[in-house]
């Protein structure tokens, strides 16, 4: 994983220092800067040095801003996390309700309507939806702001109404894909479980529908949780497009800037940190699944 992060940014064209120095910079200045950033050593040595430092939490210094990569990434990560969690919660709630209903009314008109909505959600390019939302709610109705986190341009999230107002549109745009995917998963799980014999047994025992649904929900949980966890990870890493549209100061915007300024340490650090969180999240799901469903044991 770390090898990929490292290799990724080194296969690309363009000398990272060329963005810093003027075209006619004397050779000795170039050499000194290269030595300073460790770019004069062979790639393997660069990799080992980078990994060794990364393990201790030192991801180097951003070439463009000269601030530490960790110092750049962490605040952005918090901002991204706020959006991702917001989008995930909205998406999961909508998905569970629609999916539950679709699964319960399996094969009936209601099922077809909700399934259609789910497919629509999965097929919508979310960055386009973001633009459409801006057009409707910011340009035409002028209800909600379209850019940034707040009016002052600060990049720290505070619990003010202003911040929440800025969050509304990005969160809706982000929630559509997870909503669609969760709807599909929940629908499949519920429809399948309702067909099983134990449901028949519960019914013959005289249980009412609400109690039966609780049993079904419990059995569907592990599968649905796995999908949700993955989606949260995707939201965290994949919000780059939404953050670009809304100029939300998160990791996505950071990555975008790092790519276009060829800021290698920043690029490597951000991707590695995001990947680490993604892996940790997956691990967490496995643990959570095992707690909910005792049959899953390693």
């Amino acid at each position, binding site marked *: *994983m770390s090898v*990929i992060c490292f290799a*990724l*940014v*080194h*296969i*690309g*064209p*363009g000398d990272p220092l060329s963005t810093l120095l003027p075209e006619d910079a004397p050779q000795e200045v170039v050499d000194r800067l290269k030595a300073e950033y460790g770019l004069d050593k062979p790639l393997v040595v660069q990799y080992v040095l980078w990994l060794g430092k990364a393990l201790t939490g030192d991801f180097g210094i951003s070439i463009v801003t000269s601030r530490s990569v960790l110092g750049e990434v962490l605040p952005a990560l918090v901002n991204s996390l706020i959006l991702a969690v917001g989008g995930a919660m909205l998406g999961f709630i909508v998905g569970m309700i629609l999916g539950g209903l679709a699964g319960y009314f399996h094969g009936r008109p209601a099922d077809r309507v909700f399934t259609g909505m789910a*497919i*629509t959600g*999965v*097929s*919508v*390019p*979310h*960055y*386009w*939806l973001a*633009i*459409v939302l*801006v*057009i409707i709610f910011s*340009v*035409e109705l002028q209800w909600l702001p379209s850019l940034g986190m707040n009016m002052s341009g600060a990049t720290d999230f505070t619990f003010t109404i202003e911040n929440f107002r800025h969050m509304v549109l990005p969160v809706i745009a982000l929630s559509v894909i997870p909503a669609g995917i969760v709807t599909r998963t929940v629908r499949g799980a519920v429809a399948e479980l309702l067909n099983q014999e134990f449901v028949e047994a519960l019914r013959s025992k005289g249980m009412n529908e609400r109690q039966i649904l609780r049993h079904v929900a419990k059995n569907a949980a592990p599968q649905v949780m796995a999908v949700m966890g993955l989606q949260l*990870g*995707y939201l*965290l*890493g*994949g919000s*780059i*497009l939404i953050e*670009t*549209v809304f100029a939300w100061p998160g990791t996505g915007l950071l*990555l*975008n800037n*790092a*790519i*276009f300024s060829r800021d290698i340490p920043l*690029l490597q650090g951000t*991707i590695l940190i*995001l*990947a680490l969180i*993604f*892996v940790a999240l997956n691990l967490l799901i496995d643990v959570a699944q095992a707690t909910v469903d005792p049959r899953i044991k390693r």
Partner: protein
Amino acid sequence: MTAQTMDSTAIAAAEAPSAGPKRRTYWSAVFERLRRDPVTIGCAVIILIIMLAAIFAPLIAPHDPYKTSMLNRLAAVGTPGHLLGTDELGRDMLSRLIYGGRVSLFTAIVPVIGALILGGTLGIVAGFLGGRVNMIIMRTMDVFYAFPSILLAIAISGALGAGVLNAVISLTLIFMPPICRVAETVTTQVRNLDFIAAARATPASTGRILRVHVLGNVLGPILIYASSLVSVSIIIASGLSFLGLGVSPPEADWGLMLNTLRQSIYVAPVNAALPGVLIFITGFCFNLMSDGLRSAMDVKL
């Protein structure tokens, strides 16, 4: 794949090596089911129209997609002569959308085909041979799962630099692992069925078993899975070019048009939203078509 189809195809393959009549009934049943599915047919027709429009763009487009006109900037949809209006440089939107479809569809479909060939082959080999080969191939693929796919696509594209070819490479790389995984799972299932053991008992060579008995049974599910990726592919591909990692101006695809028109949402909101509508329709139709194929072929993944 449900147990039922698995059995019927397995029996068909095991009973008669030529498998003529049985297999034909399976496929004719599939076509019969498809014919009675208006949604799938409708989606296929829409996609066909969009594709044909893109292929024959020079014949269909009413204007030159690169001809700018400063007097005619951001004309509204429905302006005489410009059915869908003009963009921020006065270029005809309809013509640009038709031409843009060329790049958009290319970057959406080619990576899936590439990943299908690479990932499918690796997965089938891993599944069929098992053991150490399986472990090496599948563990390598696992590494890719450490990254959310959009992030990986953007990172690879960003590293390689902007360009259509680089976008195709990065998308191929992110679609390869999931296809490989599906191919490996299906192949492992088929490999352990009795009819493969029966085929092994005959003088059939490994190559022949792989070609005749395994491939015929795994190709369906793998193709279905790959077809479901096309809609994801068009969204990510257009996303890459939306970020400026795809085609370079003045050439344009739907993603880049969406990006450049974003500055004009206050003046011409409808024009600005149009390219996204096409991405959405294409993705939506591919999704429904894939679902229709899946149920027609009775494949469960």
